[in-house]
């Protein structure tokens, strides 16, 4: 399996799983829907049924497309020449699923943290934290630089969009001063 590109690896089965999940969401929501008035044959539930069927069909086809044997990738030769430069023509990354999990978790965690602290800390401090988290996730470790950079960007957004253009942003406890 190691020779397969990312979109045909086992991990790619996430996508059909998402589609099947959406299909179940649609079926459940349509069955429990409180239809206002007489829906008729083509009422508010028609399109959800169509899309739900589409989700299930596409999920099945996509899962088949990912799982079906691919002699061009699954031959022993491709497996043996794993780490070294393959002769498949494309100079892709050696590991198809070369996802840097800690980096992704740092970035996702940064966004989640931002959402939690925004009402309390206000825009400038929360956005500085978000900037720092994403910069760290992308491998930057020069702390003074990224914190100051984040402060500059979030302050600039506050000044241009909130003070000049009048879009409201939460000020948090800083606004109390």
């Amino acid at each position, binding site marked *: 399996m190691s020779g397969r590109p*990312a*979109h045909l690896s086992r*991990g*790619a089965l*996430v*996508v*059909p799983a*998402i*589609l099947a999940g*959406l299909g179940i*969401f*649609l079926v459940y*929501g349509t069955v429990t*829907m*409180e*239809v206002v008035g007489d*829906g008729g*044959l*083509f*009422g*508010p539930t*028609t*399109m*959800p049924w169509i*899309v739900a069927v*589409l*989700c299930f069909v*596409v*999920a099945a*086809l*996509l899962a088949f*497309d990912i799982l079906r044997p691919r002699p061009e990738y699954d031959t022993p030769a491709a497996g043996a020449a794993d780490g070294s430069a393959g002769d498949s023509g494309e100079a892709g*990354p050696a590991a198809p699923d*070369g*996802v*840097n999990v800690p*980096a992704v978790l740092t*970035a*996702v965690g940064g*966004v989640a943290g*931002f*959402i939690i602290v925004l*009402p309390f800390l206000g825009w400038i401090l929360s*956005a500085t934290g*978000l*900037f720092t988290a*994403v*910069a*760290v*996730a*992308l*491998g*930057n470790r020069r702390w003074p630089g*990224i914190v100051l*950079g984040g402060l500059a*960007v979030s302050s600039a*957004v506050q000044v241009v*969009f909130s003070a000049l253009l009048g*879009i409201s*942003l939460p000020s948090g406890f800083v606004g109390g001063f």
Partner: protein
Amino acid sequence: MEQLSNLLGGFADILSPSALLFVFLGALMGTAVGVLPGLGSAMAVALLLPLTFVLDPTSALIMFTGIYFGGLFGDSIAGFLMNTPGNSTAIASTFEGHRMALRGKAAQALATGAIGAFIGGMAASALVVFFAPMLAQLATGFGPAEFLALAVFAFVAISAVVADSAIRGVAALAIGLTLALIGIDQPSGSPRFSFGFSPLLDGISIVVITVSLLALGEVFSQAAKVGRAQDTKAVMPTGRWWLSRAEFRQALPAWLRGTAIGVPFGVIPAGGAEVPTFLAYGTERRLDRRKPEPTFGKGAIEGVAAPEAAGNATAGTAMGALLALGLPTSATAAILLAAFQQYGLQPGPLLLERSGDIVWALLAGFFLAMIVLLILNLPFAPLWAQLLRVPKSYLYAGIAVFAAFGVYAAGASTVDLVIMLVLGVLGLAMRLYDIPVAPVLIAVILGPLAEYSLRDAMGNSDNDPAVLVSSPITVVLYLLLAAGVAWTAWRRFAEKQAADV
């Protein structure tokens, strides 16, 4: 000519310092996001959608159009210099453009691209000025069946014809259609898929969906790639940024052929400029093979000129299709449609009648934007190349902050931010496993139109399905669609045959 006097009126409207400033800002930002790999005009316009709350429609829309065209000017810079095209629209021109750069002709390659984008965009804008009113006239006869046909055409074209893998395109389409269903059903007032949770009654805003999938998804995907050895060295352009007479004469026919190939692709909903740029590249390569001394593979100027002209020609006529038919044919056009809707304007046949002044000012803005972009791109290309030196960590951290701001500004709600995080992770999964994002956006924008048109058409005809194919326009659209699907299937089959040899 009525169009000419209208256009002159449009120029009169936008030749004010403030309007010119927005043209300039749009061109500047568009080029910048075009230059930076991974960013694009669709994402830039999505991030700036909150500005529609504070700017007047003409200023905002002119700026957004400048970004759209600017993205297509700038995308070649990273492609030519680093061999990493800023956008999929620059892949075709990068083959020969990067080879020119390696041979020390980076500046000339960039000039060829910029002039090509200028010629393609200008020609397409002129065509839009003359044909948009006629197209709008034709579209006044559109009923629900015709709009359903247009939406179905757009769905199938962008997911099955344009995407590399039809099944992955349709998967993206299904995700988008599902997102579009959440919220109150307009005709009946029934709440759908909100499960008693009131913030979901209004549905998920298009701003949240685009910003999450395009901006945050890209940020997460950059994080996923940290540590992979993939940083390439840039060839910095030096020397003259103009073309010699011989180079100009060589490129001119290619620019014109590229424009001719690009123009029709903006009007038919085939989803952006990828297909026409590759067609233009392929045409030039075939012509080159007949020469006594073929130059393709060694940095052929025609291989740069034709795709760049085709790309901007497509963007120009795509704006025409958006204004006259209300039909977005690319991801950026889909977000521009959302921008119009923020102002309560519905692009389509009635727009010219009801808000003609905005449309003509916008069309005049196209021409100004092209001129500004040519000036920004020709002599200053080396300056733009410096942008490629901005460290990725700062760049994407800034984008994450802007994404959070854009989503929060759109609704001042924490629920929107949570949806953003979920969709951002979805965007990461889609990028990891080669699921295209554009069909999601088209489905979200056109999904409601398709659904309500279908229900109107059936309701008006006692559920007689024949009404869906009863007019010549619907028949022509479905036939065109069938031909497109057949051609794509044949093309994929032929490619597979060729690859097996």
